């Protein structure tokens, strides 16, 4: 394919245009390759090759830092694993040629990891990468990896291993395009943390010739190829690029000065300090799970108070919304046993755990109130997994008894969205968790990769529910926030504002692109774009219609 438009899943916002370059392919091995050395000599060379790969991964881990460093040092440990060498030795003795013995040894462990599914199965990519690197070393050919032509490239591959993605910073790569992968793949997570536009799950990328000009839109998942990439350049597309280009700053608002607070989602104290150092207007979602998960006993009030005080102090008066513990049988805590459940996502989780363990919630609310006093700041609290106005009212009552006066609930259950007015009558604010609201609306498990299309936040049914909540908020003059992934997609952020969201909370890396988008649109523009999206019958059509409406209206912010 030399021109036209192909589509995948947009997983990291921003757009970029550059010639396509393919990841150097691994060397294929076969049992029929010539055998040129004795098994003992071959084993010695394999030991050397695996050792070299382990050393390289360890060195990259040192350079990379953060998430990538952890993944890489684990990969290094796998390469240095004596069991892998033993398995290769068995293959050699059974008559395999040198390189192929490595391939077979790797395949043996891949099969075992794949059998467990989930997280372990995802490590298979790392393990295959170790094999490919060792085989390249043994064959004396260039390491598979990222080309470095000295000019910007859009990197394409079947999928990227952590080793590949870890070397992206400082490389020539300006966007990623992969044939496989989903919204939670390494590629998606690391691209996002680097602010690189990325489209994954795009099988048609396999047909693209090297060097062809492509324009990748990491928000819509659209990839324009050849002349279409030239002609398809959109007004303002460069200003939607992430942090690497001109970074807009200041508070979130529309072109006609309607404020839309652009807040941060934070999950740890380190996150909070990083977010507090940016323009972020506060914390829209402070996940407190990190304090609880993996503990044998419940954290004490003093311990919790210290952490909450630290976060409130870091944000120096900017609003902070603390979400009470969101645990359940899928995230079990030894001190809050909930038993085995057939369907943990539909079981006792979020606020529902408080009916079983009221003390845990009481301690948390006590700690939040103490933290607010000791930091001399106001604080907001909200509860997850609320289904009815009665539950909301009970939570508000408990929170107020603890001296907390700005109390809200999350809207994640369709029932809560449908009757949002009743909930808003008893709370001070609501915050929509689009990820869970999506999974419950579409009856599609968030962990089920094959259902990714149903979990697309552009599903019109999900937008309808958001619209109901937005309208209920407007009618009562109460704030409606959105704190799911949806808020980090600039175009979808405009739709959410059009549907009535008064604040959006996202990973800080997404903020500049969302800010630039909103500054170029009036509140009325957002409403028109939202209507266009909701007039669609599917997620992809909703995206396209919203984009068309947006192109008529967006203009470079004054």
């Amino acid at each position, binding site marked *: 394919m030399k021109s036209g438009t192909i589509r995948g899943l947009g997983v990291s916002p921003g757009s970029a245009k550059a010639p396509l370059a393919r990841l150097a392919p691994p060397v294929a091995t076969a049992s029929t390759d010539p055998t040129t050395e004795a098994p003992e000599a071959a084993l010695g060379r394999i030991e050397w090759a695996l050792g070299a790969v382990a050393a390289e991964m360890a060195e990259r881990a040192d350079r990379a830092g953060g998430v990538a460093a952890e993944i890489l040092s*684990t990969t290094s440990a796998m390469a240095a*694993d004596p*069991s*892998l060498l033993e398995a290769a030795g068995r293959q050699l003795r059974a008559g395999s040629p040198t390189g192929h013995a490595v391939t077979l040894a790797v395949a043996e462990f891949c099969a*075992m990891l794949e059998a467990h599914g989930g*997280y*372990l199965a995802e490590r298979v990519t790392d393990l295959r990468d170790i094999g490919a690197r060792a085989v390249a070393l043994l064959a004396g050919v260039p390491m598979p990896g990222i080309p470095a032509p000295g000019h910007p490239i859009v990197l394409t591959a079947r999928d990227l291993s952590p080793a590949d993605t870890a070397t992206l910073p400082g490389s020539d790569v300006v966007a990623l395009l992969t044939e496989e992968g989903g919204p939670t793949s390494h590629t998606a997570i690391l691209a996002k943390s680097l602010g690189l536009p990325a489209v994954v799950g795009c099988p048609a990328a396999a047909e693209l010739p090297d060097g062809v000009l492509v324009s990748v839109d990491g928000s819509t998942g659209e990839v324009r190829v050849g002349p279409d990439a030239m002609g398809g350049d959109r007004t303002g597309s460069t200003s939607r690029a992430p942090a690497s280009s001109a970074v807009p700053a200041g508070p979130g608002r529309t072109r006609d000065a309607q404020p839309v607070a652009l807040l941060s989602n934070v999950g740890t104290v380190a996150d909070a300090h990083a977010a507090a150092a940016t323009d972020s207007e506060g914390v829209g979602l402070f996940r407190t799970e990190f304090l609880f998960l*993996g*503990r044998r006993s419940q954290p004490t009030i003093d311990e919790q108070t210290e952490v909450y005080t630290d976060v409130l102090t870091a944000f120096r008066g900017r609003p902070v919304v603390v979400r009470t513990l969101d645990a359940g049988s899928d*995230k079990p805590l030894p001190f809050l046993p909930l038993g085995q459940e057939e369907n943990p996502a539909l079981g006792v989780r979020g606020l529902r755990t408080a009916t079983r363990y009221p003390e845990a919630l009481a301690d948390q609310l006590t700690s939040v109130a103490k933290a607010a006093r000791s930091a001399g700041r106001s604080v907001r609290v909200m509860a997850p997994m609320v289904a009815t106005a009665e539950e909301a009212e009970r939570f508000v009552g408990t929170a107020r008894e603890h001296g907390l006066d700005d109390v809200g609930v999350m809207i994640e259950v369709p029932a809560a969205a449908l009757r949002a007015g009743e909930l808003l009558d008893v709370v001070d604010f609501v915050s929509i968790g689009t990820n869970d609201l999506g999974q419950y609306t579409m009856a599609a498990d968030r962990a089920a990769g094959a259902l990714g299309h149903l979990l697309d936040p552009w599903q019109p049914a999900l937008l309808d529910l958001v619209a109901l909540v937005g309208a209920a908020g407007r009618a009562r003059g109460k704030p409606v926030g959105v704190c799911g992934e949806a808020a980090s997609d600039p175009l979808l952020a405009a739709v959410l504002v059009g549907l009535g969201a008064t604040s959006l909370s996202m990973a800080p890396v997404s903020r500049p692109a969302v800010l630039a988008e909103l500054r170029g649109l009036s509140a009325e523009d957002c409403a028109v774009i939202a209507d266009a999206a909701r007039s669609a019958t599917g997620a992809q059509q909703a995206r396209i219609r919203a984009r068309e409406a947006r192109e008529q209206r967006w203009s470079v912010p004054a």
Partner: protein
Amino acid sequence: MPSRTVTIASRVGLHARPAATFSRAAAATGLAVTLSVADSAPVNASSILAVMSLGVGFGQAVTLNAEGEGADEALDTLAALLATEQDGQ
């Protein structure tokens, strides 16, 4: 043979990073330490791939075995490691 049975405290189970930490510590003992879960065959605890291949989850009980001088001490250290959350996230 000295043996310890311990419950996995890492929320993500004995996967990737916690497995790396554990197998490194097992290798550092210099002893032949094995790890088994339920009725599975014991595997080499120094091998991250073998440890990961057991697919041990949070809250599951595993058994450690070792022989030789210092085996008891080594097993105590390794058991304590498994009984501690290894994933800081």
